[in-house]
């Protein structure tokens, strides 16, 4: 019985290994060649950089010719700012919707869920008009406002599901002691949903960090570019400088890789939690 099983297992691993290579091969290829001389990039694209072919010239020219540090700071500001607001506003709304019974509760929950399916991007014409009116074009504030609106629906859904599982006794006891509703939320509930907040954080952060559309429409210049837009503009300009192009791609990939290694657990749990019902 074990004999026919073994080759079958080998075939399974073979297939998975092959696909894993297909998935990460291109990314490894870029990372490898970013550290090689132009000659080595072309003569031996699949080889590792060695003593002779190793160089950081691409990184030097990216940092020199573009304001990569600034783009990075812009992306960080927008992502962290939006994330903080999505988590706080989202948790507050999710708590109100799960904890309190009030007129229009279900209707409001449905209203807030529209944004999960309907992409906010389709409202861009009006969003741009509004931002012009508020004088917010080419500001990071415009991006934060849009990303908060975009991130809230899913955050409210995920946080609400977790909040439903909090046992009633906890807050009932607190209420008997005369603790205010605000303190119950901020001191008891929020710390209890830390896990869910981590999941929401990953789901909110990644699309914001990676987005091209809204930076392109709302903040395309004046040193307000995010990394994604900055890299797009940089590569458009220096398309023939292979060292610089590969280095700029590597710089854009690196932070996400680090985050992914740190947070992949939360992400997987978030993706798979929906089905655990």
């Amino acid at each position, binding site marked *: 019985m074990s004999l026919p099983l073994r080759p079958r297992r080998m075939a399974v691993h073979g297939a998975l290994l092959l696909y894993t290579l297909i998935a990460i091969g*291109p990314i490894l290829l870029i990372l490898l060649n970013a550290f090689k001389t132009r000659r080595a990039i072309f003569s031996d694209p699949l080889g590792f950089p060695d003593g002779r072919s190793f160089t950081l010239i691409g990184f030097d020219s990216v940092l020199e010719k573009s304001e990569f540090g600034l783009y990075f700071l812009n992306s960080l500001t927008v992502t962290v700012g939006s994330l903080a607001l999505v988590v706080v506003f989202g948790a507050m709304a999710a708590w109100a*919707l799960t904890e309190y019974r009030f007129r229009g509760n279900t209707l409001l929950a449905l209203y*807030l869920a529209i944004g999960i399916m309907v992409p906010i991007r389709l409202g861009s014409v009006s969003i741009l008009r509004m931002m012009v009116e508020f004088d917010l074009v080419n500001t990071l504030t415009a991006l934060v406002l849009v990303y908060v609106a975009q991130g809230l629906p899913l955050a409210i859904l995920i946080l609400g599901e977790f909040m439903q599982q909090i046992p009633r006794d906890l807050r009932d006891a607190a209420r008997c002691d005369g603790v205010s509703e605000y303190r119950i939320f901020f001191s008891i509930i929020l710390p209890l949903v830390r896990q869910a907040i981590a999941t929401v954080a990953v789901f909110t952060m990644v699309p914001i960090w990676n*987005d091209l559309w809204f930076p392109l429409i709302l903040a395309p210049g004046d040193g307000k570019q995010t990394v994604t837009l900055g890299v797009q503009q940089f590569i458009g300009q220096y398309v023939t400088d292979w060292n610089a192009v590969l280095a700029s791609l590597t710089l854009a990939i690196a932070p996400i890789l680090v985050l992914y290694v740190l947070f992949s657990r939360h992400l997987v749990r978030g993706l798979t939690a929906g089905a655990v019902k």
Partner: protein
Amino acid sequence: MSTIAATEEMAEDLAGRRGWPLHIVVFLAPAVLVYSLFSIYPLIDTIRLSLFTTDEAGLYHFVGLDNFGRLIGDPTWSGPFWNAFRNNLVFFAIHMVVQNGIGLGLAMLLSLPDLAGRNLYRTLIFLPTMLSVVIIGFIWQLMLSPLWGVAETFLGFFGLGGYFGPWLGQETTALATISLISVWQFIGIPMMLIYAALLNIPDDLVDAATVDGAGPFHVFWQVKLPLIVPTLGIVSILTFVANFNAFDLIYAVKGALAGPNFSTDILGTFFYRTFFGYQLQVGNPTMGATVATMMLMIILVGVLIYLFGVQRRLQRHTF
């Protein structure tokens, strides 16, 4: 801003007359305000704008459904629109078949009992999904570039070097190539969702079928697949919404003109060009709003088909 006033009025109204405790209003207000102002209002306002046109002086005139008539019937608009729509359908079809097909296959393999290295495979295969579409676009553009020749060298290992072509540059192959790049990036999503659904199938069901003499192949088709149909439905609708809203990849690889000769133009890039303009063409906000409204309707039709057609029928089968 009439919405702010309306929302405030609503909040006051609800807090006062109907006796909403203040803390509920405080908890809900920030989320509801930001969401209404920057998500729902712009969507509604976009639909409103699609019924107007601007003159040289920049004044808005109400024209009813004329813009939609032009988009569908006037050759200068309908040509590009139907072209983008057709391309978008192809883009979606390739995702449905290749992305969701391979995703299902990978999920099946990953869900095999006692598989060593399961988490590592899963984490690595999901990795491209995390990266920016723009970055992925450039990576593949470099790899498929005949200048670098990496793809050609690689195919050469298998004796297939002769089949290499400038796939991103040819009118006949560009759309399929771009679609496959997108498939490569997002395969992790169907894989994860289907994998989770497969893990949730009770072991008893599989055991019972095995005891009855069903082989692994039979178990998959007759027992597991019917049970994960709801998840396949969710995967399909997510793919649909994402595909009919896609833009970044094509803009990064082919620019706003979605060349060669608009062969990779999909609704997202068409919307961008209409609204923002390109080269000598000046942007047209009201026609842009019209295209966005059409996209909104296409997405809504898809979601409604899913909600009322697919999901309702599925509920009978869930346990």
